[in-house]
């Protein structure tokens, strides 16, 4: 069964609405537990028409789509996955606030049919809001396979909702689901959510509080579902209390629940949770028939091995190794291709166009070295971001992410992190940028921020060229050991900094680790691709703009005042001269090193390129290669893309091979090597590469942090502590080494 409908291209409901006022827009919120297949269901209904953004003020993802179905305009709003409407997590607060304040026309409640009772606990809370509900009884195929028989009719009767069995991964039942939503929107009176009876003592207390509200605060009684408001006031829900400030009646409310608390010897919140679960449990007993004999399920079989005492960690590490290799090896040929294309044909075409209009040389340099190079540096990231998003989404969708957290939590918790922090940290060794984006798998803001602060200490691939050239120049005999020492130093400092942050910036209780281990499921390819595409697009547009701006800025710094012969007199060189004395105690207090480090904020590998430009003054004799014809460029574009694809595919199968560390030795590199041999000592060289390892994250990381957290705060902290740390460690290395008389 497939769902077909016309999708309006316009994202703006209000604008479209005023034009065709004959049609009404039905706003439908989609709510459900995590792992209930909610994302898959939404992707199946709205597909690429989903508009992904953030909820105002927070970094939780918001998905929306507007489309037309059988003459009704439907606005679908995806709410974050939650287990409850309690006010303790960001996701719960968003879901609640949206439902209470925006009052959608209907709620689609996605319920995992294989895990009825816990899912119905949320349903019970949704009914308190008195908004019409259509229940998507999802993953119905799995429930049937398990031999479950669910009486949907009985459930409809008991809850006052429409129940539609669905299998979102195969698009089954979605057509009926939308029909039910429209029917409900057209005739809201046809189905009222039932007011479930929570027991006489709760109900009588609620009646008293309700009448208190009605008498004292008629405006509130208008604005909020009264029964829900009464429950929340009884529960002393901080969030609602802050919003309402019904202080004068606090005592009367307290009086109303006194009897209740005494009878149960519990706080009202717990009494209410009990009562709601009692409803969910009672209903489950009523509608669900389970087979007597329970077979050992596939998930349990897999977990017997995947979470095994001895095999759990090796298997996890193997899985991570594959993911890491796939992410970076598959994307690398494509990234390289994009890089070659922008610095090759695209640059030549731009030059040709600029030449045609007889633009001044500064403009041609701005276009080719600033703008085109900037575009290139954005595009290079695209394949790796897409690849990472794909694998992370797969890990989450398949259920393995929760296992990864389970296996690693003990080790990560020791330094104040969460089990799930391991994956971003690991990705950091490839590239810090996708690693920062990967912190989104962490639900808690504290865990997420702490992980993001430590990720830049993982030595990324862009730092490698710098190490390689210095190690090649000074420590060719001990290359492996020196390189290894840098990676280990990064990890060791991450542990130290983690412990320090845990005691200072993130003082107080570590967030809890109460996590569902969902059954293993094969995520649908469509859902995976849509998710990956959305994320990649988001990166391209949002991060791309910033990166471009920064690379143009650096062009200005490097090339102005226009016509500088000596890089020393460029703005960058001037700033380098100012900064040099600060680096003096570290053993590399010259403007060349300082300027190169500054250029490295774009991407750390640029340190090498800039050093090449500054130290090796081979300007003026640039090789004049013949300009390839336009058609040759086009041909090259196509064939090299094909070659890149082949390489990507090959890398999938050769992931076990370790990529060699040898950098291609070109003439400039060889020249650079001999220059740095004369300006650095082995000791100052080692101090320099430790500085490169530790000093501020690159601009793209900064932008990623800004995007993920919605504020510059965390990048500011990362910048400050990393600069201090880099200086301190390089200082200790150089001064300590000098004192001990090593390598001076």
């Amino acid at each position: 069964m497939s769902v077909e409908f016309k999708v309006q291209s316009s994202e703006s409901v209000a604008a479209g609405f005023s034009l065709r006022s004959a049609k009404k827009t039905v706003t439908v919120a989609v709510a459900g537990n995590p792992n209930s297949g909610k994302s898959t269901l939404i992707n199946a209904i709205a597909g690429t028409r989903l508009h992904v953004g953030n909820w105002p003020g927070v970094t939780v993802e918001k998905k929306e789509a507007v489309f037309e179905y059988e003459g009704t305009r439907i606005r679908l709003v995806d709410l974050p996955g939650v287990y409850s409407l309690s006010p303790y997590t960001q996701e719960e607060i968003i879901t609640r606030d949206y439902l209470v304040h925006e009052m959608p026309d209907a709620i689609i409640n996605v319920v995992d049919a294989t895990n009825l009772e816990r899912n119905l606990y949320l349903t019970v809370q949704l009914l308190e809001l008195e908004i019409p509900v259509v229940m998507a009884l999802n993953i119905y195929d799995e429930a049937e396979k398990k031999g479950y028989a669910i009486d949907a009719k009985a459930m409809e009767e008991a809850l006052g909702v429409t129940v539609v069995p669905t299998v979102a991964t195969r698009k089954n039942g979605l057509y009926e689901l939308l029909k039910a939503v429209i029917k409900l929107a057209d005739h809201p009176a046809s189905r009222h959510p039932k007011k479930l009876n929570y027991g006489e003592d709760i109900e009588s207390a609620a009646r008293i509080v309700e009448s208190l509200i009605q008498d004292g605060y008629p405006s509130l009684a208008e604005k909020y579902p009264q029964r829900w408001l009464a429950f929340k006031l009884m529960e002393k829900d901080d969030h609602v209390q802050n919003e309402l400030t019904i202080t004068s009646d606090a005592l009367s409310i307290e009086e109303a629940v006194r009897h209740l608390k005494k009878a149960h010897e519990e706080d009202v919140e717990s009494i209410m949770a009990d009562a709601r679960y009692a409803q969910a449990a009672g209903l489950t007993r009523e509608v669900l028939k389970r087979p007597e004999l329970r077979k050992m399920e596939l998930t349990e079989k897999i977990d017997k091995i995947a979470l095994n005492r001895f095999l759990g960690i090796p298997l996890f590490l193997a899985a991570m190794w594959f993911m890491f290799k796939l992410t970076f090896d598959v994307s690398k040929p494509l990234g390289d291709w994009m890089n070659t294309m922008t610095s090759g044909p695209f640059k030549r075409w731009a030059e040709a166009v600029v030449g045609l209009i007889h633009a001044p040389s500064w403009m041609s340099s701005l276009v080719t070295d600033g703008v085109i190079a900037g575009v290139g540096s954005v595009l290079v990231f695209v394949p790796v971001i897409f690849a990472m998003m794909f694998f992370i989404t797969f890990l989450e969708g398949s259920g393995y992410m929760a296992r990864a957290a389970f296996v690693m939590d003990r080790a990560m918790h020791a330094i104040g992190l969460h089990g799930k922090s391991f994956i971003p940290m690991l990705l950091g060794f490839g590239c810090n940028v996708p690693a920062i984006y990967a912190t989104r798998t962490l639900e808690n803001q504290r865990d997420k921020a702490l992980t993001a602060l430590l990720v830049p200490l993982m030595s990324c691939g862009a730092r490698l060229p710098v190490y390689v050239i210095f190690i090649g120049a000074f420590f060719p005999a001990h290359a492996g050991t020196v390189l290894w020492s840098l990676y280990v130093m990064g990890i060791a400092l991450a542990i130290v900094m983690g412990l320090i942050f845990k005691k200072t910036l993130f003082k107080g209780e570590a967030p809890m680790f109460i996590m569902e281990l969902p059954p293993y499921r094969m995520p649908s390819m469509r859902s995976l691709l849509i998710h990956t595409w959305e994320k990649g697009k988001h990166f391209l547009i949002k991060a791309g703009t910033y990166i471009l701006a920064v690379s143009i800025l650096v062009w200005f710094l490097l090339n102005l005042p226009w016509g500088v012969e000596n890089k020393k007199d460029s703005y960058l060189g001037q700033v380098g001269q100012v900064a040099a004395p600060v680096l003096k105690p570290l053993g590399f207090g010259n403007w060349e090193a300082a300027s190169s480090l500054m250029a490295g904020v774009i991407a750390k590998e640029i340190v090498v390129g800039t050093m090449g430009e500054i130290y090796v003054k081979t300007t003026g004799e640039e090789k004049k290669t013949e300009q390839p014809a336009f058609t040759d460029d086009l041909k090259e574009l196509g064939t090299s893309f094909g070659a890149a694809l082949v390489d990507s595919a090959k890398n999938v199968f050769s992931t076990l091979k370790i990529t060699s560390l040898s950098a291609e030795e070109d003439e400039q590199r060889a020249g650079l090597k001999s220059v740095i041999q004369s300006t650095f000592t082995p000791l100052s060289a080692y101090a320099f590469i430790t500085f490169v390892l530790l000093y501020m994250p690159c601009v793209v990381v900064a932008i990623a942090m800004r995007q993920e957290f919605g504020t510059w705060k965390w990048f500011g902290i990362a910048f400050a502590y990393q600069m201090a740390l880099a200086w301190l460690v390089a200082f200790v290395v150089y001064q300590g080494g000098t004192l001990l008389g090593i390598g001076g």
Partner: protein
Amino acid sequence: MNLSMLKPGESGKITKIGAIGPLKRRLMDMGVLVGEDVKVEKVAPLGDPLEVSVKNYKLSLRKKEAEGIAVEVL
């Protein structure tokens, strides 16, 4: 007796939830309620956290969090 003391394969009936505030509410939201049966399925390879089954699904929690859940061995 608390939940963290049960060995893999052992089950208990929850008699009291000692936690307070958000932790307690979160546990209850996940179906960890007084009177509920809970079975320890596994201990993570490094000794923490635990995997338990409750309300017919699998939940993981740290030992420290399990310490606050009093159980009566079944």
